């Protein structure tokens, strides 16, 4: 990242997102007035989502973030008091793997108490001269205990 207070410019285009639609990772556009997703404008130096939209990342889609967002991801965000952009790809993947283990192997919906037993969250940061600098994105990491 350019600095602790700067977002990197987005490299996402409409064609990038259409490729994710083709891959089944993103819903197709069905309503021009209320599109399911929007590629940032080149002039968007940092996210400025319209009302009713959040900031998501391509890597989240690649690592199991489903749209609509699963109940598990929503509960994780509410419990830890963070927004979607505060997670990082590894955290999204941990949640997706956990849901798969619960549903596919244990035969139960993702179990919240089991998640808390197995995982903890930590603050991700970068270090500069021994000082911990918070990250603008991806500041909350879900990891196995």
């Amino acid at each position: 990242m350019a600095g602790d207070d700067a977002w990197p410019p987005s490299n996402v285009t409409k064609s990038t997102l259409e490729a994710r639609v083709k891959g089944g990772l993103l819903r197709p556009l069905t309503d021009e007035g209320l599109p399911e997703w929007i590629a940032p404008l080149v002039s968007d130096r940092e996210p400025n989502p319209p009302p009713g939209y959040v900031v998501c990342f391509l890597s989240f889609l690649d690592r199991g973030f489903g749209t609509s967002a699963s109940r598990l991801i929503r509960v994780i965000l509410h419990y830890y008091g963070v927004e979607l952009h505060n997670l990082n790809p590894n955290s999204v993947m941990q949640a997706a793997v956990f849901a798969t283990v619960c549903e596919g192997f244990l035969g139960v919906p993702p179990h919240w108490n089991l998640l808390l037993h197995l995982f903890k969250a930590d603050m991700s940061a970068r270090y500069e001269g021994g000082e911990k600098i918070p990250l603008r994105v991806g500041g909350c990491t879900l990891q196995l205990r």
Partner: protein
Amino acid sequence: MPTSNWGWQSGWFYLQNDSGLLLGYTGKKVTECPSKWA
């Protein structure tokens, strides 16, 4: 699935927040690790 997370922060876009089920975007930055996270 990609094998590297390198540069993932540049892959941002806007996603419709279905019925407001996700916390709305405020640009929040995580500056501390509350005790309940442990």
